[in-house]
């Protein structure tokens, strides 16, 4: 029983990380049909920004330094997202394949650049006393950082939900995911809305990067790549451009992965996630069409 509780809580924690990584990806794809391969590079950028800040703030207590690191990760993610959108994505408006190619090139170059500056090895990320210890939940010793992931994901989910439901910007985004051409025809600048969404998504990617670093207790240039693939799977299962779908899918993927990895064999969990994807595709192939 304690095993099960531990697995469920860590599964939800992992799902929370997936949600952080996938929510931006899903909105970006839903609104503009841009499949952003550089999302993983944004995560790496956020992770290293956080790591640099934390390793320079040796005077502060671990937890406080990490909080500043998280802010830095968010800021760097947003900034890089803004530059990439304005300089690289915008000129290729509506040319989806070229946009994918550019983000592929960018992800290769960016990860290589990080590796060139800080080396290919993992760098330790000190995360403070509280995050390194565990809390007893129904007899299971749950690592505290899982609660941080869950809180961050909840915050992002509620924040995005409020943005989508109660603001004019959210209204435009929802309408744009539904039918971008119609919104543009009504005289609304969808392109500018897209820039905002891209920056938000990139900031979330930066956050996912530094929290992924907390999960592994270290940052590596390759950490974005594996995360990105699961984020893609989450986006596909959840349905492109649907925030609720992404949340449910992230939770399902995290839980399935943790539970089967433990109860079947290590590695089976990763495979069963892909099987889940194949199943969703066979049963409802329409779920992936998103906006047009």
């Amino acid at each position, binding site marked *: 029983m304690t095993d099960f509780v531990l697995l469920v809580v860590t599964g939800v924690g992992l799902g929370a990380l997936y949600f952080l990584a996938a929510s931006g990806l899903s909105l970006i*794809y839903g609104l503009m*049909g841009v*499949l952003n*391969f550089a999302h993983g590079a944004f995560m790496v950028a956020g992770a290293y920004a956080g790591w640099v800040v934390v390793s320079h703030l040796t005077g502060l207590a671990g937890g406080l330094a990490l909080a500043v690191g998280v802010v830095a990760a968010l800021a760097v993610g947003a900034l890089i997202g803004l530059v990439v959108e304005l300089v*690289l994505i915008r*000129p290729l408006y509506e040319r*989806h*394949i*070229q946009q*994918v*190619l*550019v983000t*592929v*090139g*960018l*992800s*290769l*170059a*960016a*990860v*290589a*650049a990080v*590796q*060139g*500056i800080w080396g290919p090895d993992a760098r330790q990320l000190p995360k403070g006393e509280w995050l390194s210890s565990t809390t007893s939940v129904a007899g299971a010793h749950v690592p505290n950082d899982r609660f941080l992931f869950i809180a961050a994901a909840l915050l992002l989910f509620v924040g995005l939900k409020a943005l989508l439901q109660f603001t004019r910007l959210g209204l435009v985004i929802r309408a744009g995911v539904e039918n971008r051409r119609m919104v543009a025809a009504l005289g609304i600048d969808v392109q500018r809305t897209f820039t905002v969404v891209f920056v938000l998504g990139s900031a979330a990617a930066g956050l996912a990067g530094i929290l992924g670093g907390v999960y592994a207790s270290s940052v590596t240039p390759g950490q974005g*790549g594996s995360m990105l*693939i699961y984020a*893609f*799977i989450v*986006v*596909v299962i959840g349905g*492109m451009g649907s925030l609720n779908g992404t949340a449910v899918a992230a939770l399902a993927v995290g839980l399935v992965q943790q539970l089967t990895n433990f109860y079947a064999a*290590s*590695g089976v969990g*990763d*495979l069963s996630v*892909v*099987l889940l*994807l*194949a199943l969703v*595709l*066979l049963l409802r*192939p329409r779920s*992936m*069409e998103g906006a047009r």
Partner: protein
Amino acid sequence: MTRRLRTVALPLVLLLVLAYLPYVPTELPGLLPDRVNGPGSMQLLAICLTTAGIALSYDVLFGRTGLLSFGHALVVAAGSYLTAIAMSSLDLPLALAAVVALVGTTLLALVVGAIALRVGGIAFAMVTLAFAQAASIVVLRNPGGVTGGEEGLTLDRDLMPNLLLGVANAPYRYWVALGFLVVAWLVVAWLVRSRVGHAMAAVRENEARAAVLGLPVYRTKLVALVVGSFLGALGGVVHAVVLGGSSPHITTAEFTLSLLVMVVLGGAGSSWGAVVGGFLYAYADARLIEVSGSSLLDHLPGALGGVLSEPLFILGTFFVLIVYFAPTGITGLGRRVVRRGEP
């Protein structure tokens, strides 16, 4: 006449020159590690030719049919690993193991393709990526010790023909790689001139229009995917022979991405483009590492030197520039220059 010259005579002359290279003892300092027919150069060129052939097989999907697949690593790795596994676990000689690998991979491509092609466009890209990732995970987890995990697998030397073994026989492996490239080139040339090839081009240009015209869109895409996968698997077999084994690197998503980069760099939808792109990429990937070890970069400030010593940084940046400024790739640029020269 000039067209005939370009499509038949030029490749033929180039083929003869390439086939003759193992008899050329000249040194090309800076370009190749040793004499042209030295083992180091032969190995490097064999890898370049194999990569060019694999890029050509990917172009059947991406450039010819417009299928943005992120799962081509799956079939290349399947070709390579199934050969190695058939030799180590079933004790088959190389030729038989290669047949097993080719048949197995083609069936695999048929099943995966039939599922993945239920969706189109970007969604297809993500689904193929997921399948390739699943294979990559299986290889790394090393179930029952058959895939060798992170170490990879080496081909059993006792089951290999002697001609393909050892440093001195590097020219034979080079000829195997060249032979693979020729086969891939001929299959692609035949395919694009066939009925299916024309249907592939129609699907690439406008899928909805092709469907309205009554072309079997799904079947056309599946044929393209299976033929491309077969050639990719053959490339995987040759890759294993040239390198003496399989490494988990070729199962990764990065490997597929590098294929995409090669095809776009050279020029998608043209055999010359894919071959030039694949050859140059493999060459640059191997040689840029040596540049990074040279003293050339020592004068630069620390971080900049570190970044520039990463081959992928240079290739990735170059790739982005190509997408913007030369969407038809290097060969497209070359063709434009040639055409401007003609009156």
